[in-house]
């Protein structure tokens, strides 16, 4: 079944209680911090005080001699780093494909530290205080090197070079092809279609602007943690807080150089990730400390380490040029995006490039993307990686175009909006998408139609796009004798996926939500499942349980056929979960409820147990449009959000509470990026604000109620029309707020965050 238009559902669209709710509100849920094992040791990590330095020597002997210390490790102890790896080549430096040696060096620094907070050594001791004392006894001799933390500076000739072996044949503007030159540019990508020269020649108005944005951290509440036990038989168990237990398993095995089957990852409940808990950090350290000490080892980061050494998103530099005719039709667009990857290659610039112009039909376009290494923590995914920065630049230029053409900003977007069949920047035609539906819903929304009043009050709008992910997911299900169903999931549950996936199985089988008992399991107990990220989990998890449901239905029919002794072809499985056959010879109805038939399973061949793994590429891209009213205090530069509305194509809202929650959460994070969040480095490249005091995420009373209006344009590539919802909402806030601030005080900003200090800088 493929949904076209939204069918009537019984369970989908309702708001049942989440299965993990009681444990979480009563504090019983098991997080990484709750792990206690016999003989447990506690780990601590020594981190670099410098942004860029050569490690001349490390002497751990005094730390090892301290009473209560059981093991001290450095990069040399990570097995994978002992492998011979070819010097990095351009291929090896594709985003996300750093060499194995670099993967190990990013866990524990190799010959160089590349950012303030880079891990240098780790200790396991009887308690965490002894472990911390031991860190002070490790002598590291550094030779400090010049550093660079700004993405534009890192591209300049003569910039400090992070990786002398790095060659891409690309220079800042993407034209210099000398391949023999040292560079911080790890890769270059270009998307190109049509003829931009012709396009710009046809334009009546062309606007070109440059933008920058700071580094933003995901800001999850729970810090990274990992507990590992490396047993004498070589098996490694890891309890950790991760977005993808399989990914954590594979990455750990790679770094350690052990067979994947030797590693088992047991995912704990997770206190937020937003992309930041996709990479591994502590897992290999805890494992090697455990191997050295023959004891289980538990580690966790403090908040400062989380800020210093776990991936924030990339800082960015963007240049966007858009040409339009007087009626608003875009004739050409040319964009350059550079993103700071941190110490090792792999910024989200690629995804950012592909998203930048996705809301629009633009026949003539060129988009360049540059991945730049610099002396900041290695970036990791953060909710719609890359898209907030690139779409912020494009949506800001669109606002200036609308103003100059004296057009309503939504109308300008409607003139150019992408629709089914229009080719995206990669040249692929869009399937059914809801961009136009979103824009129309914005235009008729009471918020947009309302009057705004007051001094220094303004309104802004912008739209945003994200692909949403497909990828591999696995599940298994067992039907018990009373009809209850144990559902085993490979996906770590961050945003309520146990509920949203169970609901889809219940809908498939026509049973109740309550009779399904979902459980997230470890990597030995279910098939491979990709990360909980990319807004893919409800999509892919739904596909798998839909497939499981078909298997269960077929098996139920076959059991009924045994019992009734008739062919399965004569039996149907109704939407209510009833197995129905033709009337018997006496004219009696033949029907079993799901639960009735379940009670007969053991006598007819055993209880049902099914497993499925699948990987679908029919995920549905999605759009959202935001409207904000705000007020700027000219005396202090502070912006107050007065009213905020998000309209989003959510495909089908499986559990509307969670959909709204995702959208509100995305807005809150986007508002943080727009107004206050940023990494602040001193002139030595030290991160100065590694705390929630000075890295300012919005608190509850910084935001009004965030209104959400869901538009449902079901994804034809999913049995229940699911598109992802979690990432789209973080994309529009920055340009929405930027455009509103202009409306309020007449100042255009070209950097985010637009903190009070920066607003004052413009006003004073």
């Amino acid at each position: 079944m493929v949904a076209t238009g939204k069918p009537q559902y019984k369970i989908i669209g309702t708001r049942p209680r989440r299965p993990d709710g009681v444990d979480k509100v009563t504090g019983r849920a098991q997080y990484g911090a709750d792990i206690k094992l016999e003989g447990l040791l506690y780990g601590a990590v020594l981190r670099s005080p410098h942004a860029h330095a050569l490690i001349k020597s490390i002497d751990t002997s005094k730390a090892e001699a301290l009473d209560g210390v059981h093991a001290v490790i450095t990069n040399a102890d990570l097995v994978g780093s002992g492998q011979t790896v070819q010097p990095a080549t351009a291929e090896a430096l594709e985003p996300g494909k750093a060499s194995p040696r670099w993967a190990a060096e990013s866990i524990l620094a190799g010959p160089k530290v590349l950012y303030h907070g880079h891990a240098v050594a780790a200790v396991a001791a009887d308690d965490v205080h002894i472990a911390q004392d031991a860190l002070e006894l490790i002598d590291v001799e550094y030779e400090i090197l010049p550093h660079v933390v700004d993405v534009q500076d890192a591209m300049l000739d003569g910039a400090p070079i992070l990786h002398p072996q790095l060659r891409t044949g690309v220079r800042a503007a993407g034209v210099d092809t000398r391949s023999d030159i040292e560079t911080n540019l790890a890769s270059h990508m270009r998307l190109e279609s049509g003829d931009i020269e012709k396009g710009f020649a046809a334009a009546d108005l062309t606007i070109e602007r440059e933008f920058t944005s700071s580094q933003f951290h995901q800001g999850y509440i729970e810090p990274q943690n990992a507990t590992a036990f490396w047993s004498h038989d070589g098996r490694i168990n890891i309890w950790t807080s991760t977005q993808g237990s399989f990914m954590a398993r594979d990455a750990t095995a790679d770094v350690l150089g052990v067979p994947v089957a030797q590693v088992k990852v047991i995912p704990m409940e997770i206190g937020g990730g937003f992309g930041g808990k996709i990479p591994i950090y502590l897992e290999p350290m805890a494992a090697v400390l455990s191997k050295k000490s023959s004891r289980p080892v538990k580690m966790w980061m403090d908040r400062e380490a989380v800020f210093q050494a776990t991936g924030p998103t990339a800082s960015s530099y963007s240049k966007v040029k858009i040409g339009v005719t007087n009626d608003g039709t875009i004739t050409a667009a040319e964009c350059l995006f550079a993103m700071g990857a941190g110490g090792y290659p792999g910024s989200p610039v690629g995804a950012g490039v592909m998203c930048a112009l996705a809301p629009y039909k633009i026949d003539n376009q060129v988009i360049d993307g540059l991945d730049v290494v610099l002396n900041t923590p290695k970036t990791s995914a953060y909710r719609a990686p890359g898209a907030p920065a690139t779409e912020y630049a494009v949506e800001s230029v669109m606002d200036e175009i609308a103003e100059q053409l004296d057009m309503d900003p939504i109308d300008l977007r409607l003139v150019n909006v992408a629709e089914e069949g229009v080719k995206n920047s990669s040249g692929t035609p869009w399937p059914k998408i809801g961009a136009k539906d979103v824009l129309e819903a914005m235009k008729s929304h009471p918020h947009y139609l309302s009057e705004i009043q007051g001094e220094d009050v303004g309104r802004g709008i912008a739209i945003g796009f994200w692909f949403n992910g497909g990828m591999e997911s696995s599940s298994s299900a067992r039907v018990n004798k009373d009809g209850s169903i144990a559902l085993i999931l490979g996906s770590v549950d961050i945003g309520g996926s146990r509920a949203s996936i169970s609901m889809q199985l219940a809908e498939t089988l026509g049973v109740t939500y309550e009779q399904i008992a979902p459980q997230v399991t470890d990597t030995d107990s279910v098939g491979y499942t990709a990360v909980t990220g990319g807004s893919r989990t409800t999509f892919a998890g739904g596909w798998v349980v839909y497939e499981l449901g078909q298997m269960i239905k077929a098996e139920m029919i076959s059991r009924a056929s045994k019992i009734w002794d008739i062919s399965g072809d004569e039996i149907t499985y109704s939407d209510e979960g009833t197995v129905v056959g033709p009337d018997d010879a006496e004219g009696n109805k033949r029907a079993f409820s799901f639960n009735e038939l379940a009670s007969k399973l053991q006598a007819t061949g055993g209880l049902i147990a099914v497993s499925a793994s699948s990987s679908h590429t029919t995920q549905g891209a999605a759009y959202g449009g935001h409207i904000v009213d705000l007020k700027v205090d000219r005396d202090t530069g502070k912006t107050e959000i007065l009213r905020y509305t998000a309209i989003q194509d959510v495909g089908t809202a499986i559990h509307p509470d969670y959909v709204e929650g995702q959208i509100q959460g995305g807005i809150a994070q986007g508002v943080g990026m727009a107004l206050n969040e940023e990494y602040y480095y001193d002139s030595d490249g030290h991160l100065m604000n590694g705390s929630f005091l000075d890295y300012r995420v919005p608190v509850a009373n910084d935001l009004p109620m965030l209104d959400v209006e869901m538009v449902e344009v079901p994804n034809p590539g999913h049995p229940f029309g699911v598109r992802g919802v979690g990432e789209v909402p973080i994309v529009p806030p920055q340009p929405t707020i930027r455009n509103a601030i202009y409306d309020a005080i007449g100042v255009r900003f070209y950097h985010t965050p637009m903190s009070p200090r920066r607003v004052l800088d413009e006003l004073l």
Partner: protein
Amino acid sequence: MQAVNYARATDVDDAIRLLSEGGENARVLAGGTDLIVQARERKRKVDLLVDVKHVEEFMVLEFDSSTGLKVGAATPLYQVYGDNNVKINYPALVDASTVIGGKAIQGRASLGGNLGNSSPAGDSLAAMIVLGGVATIAGPNGRREVPVGEFCTGPGQNVLESGELIVYISFPPVGDGEGAAWERFIPRNEMDIAVASAGAWVKIEDGSVTDARIALGAVAATPLVASDAAEALIGRPLTDETISSAGDAASAIARPITDMRGSIKQRKHLAKILTERTIRTAVERIR
């Protein structure tokens, strides 16, 4: 954090003895909302915590309309701002103590701790200065009184000598024609640290300002007593112009730094804005 010794002082002299014997790594423990955090993050070495919360004199909250207000150095903030006499007579103290941390912090945090921590951004400091707060300090050589405005000598540094501690802070009674206010600027709406703050106290008789005190926080290495700003008001009728000149005078003495919390330009500007705002609020509050 490491293993730390804890001692519960039985009286003021016991506290002095414990501190004197404990040396420089013996610290007074009031609410612990600065101290425990700093020790846990290894930003301050502590060998001995001297808990003063079980000694009555550190926990007083007394008001008398003729002698004024006396607040124990360890009296928790929620008691301070929850007290009716404080609400009516010293609303500037309420302004500051209700924004320090959140409810949970205010259940423990104290004025003595805010002062003892001696951060230039300590929120109660400018409020206490303009209210004429005086710290009563006890030590091996007896007791002495130090105005709050003279207490801090640098970031985290103050006039306390070895073995000395603050017992209570007293404020003069409030007379007719007097009003005071305190305000800070933070980028968020709560749970934040001041980029700049200001307090103002004014006395108005027959339409003219006859006395005033202005103080600034987070714009120098210590809280600042802005005498020039007060001078700009005294003897003048309260017009927009005099308020603005007081703001300029406050801004002129600010010696801020640029750091992750704010820039020099922003802080100097905020010193003016907050001074003007608190003067206006102070005037509105005059009974």
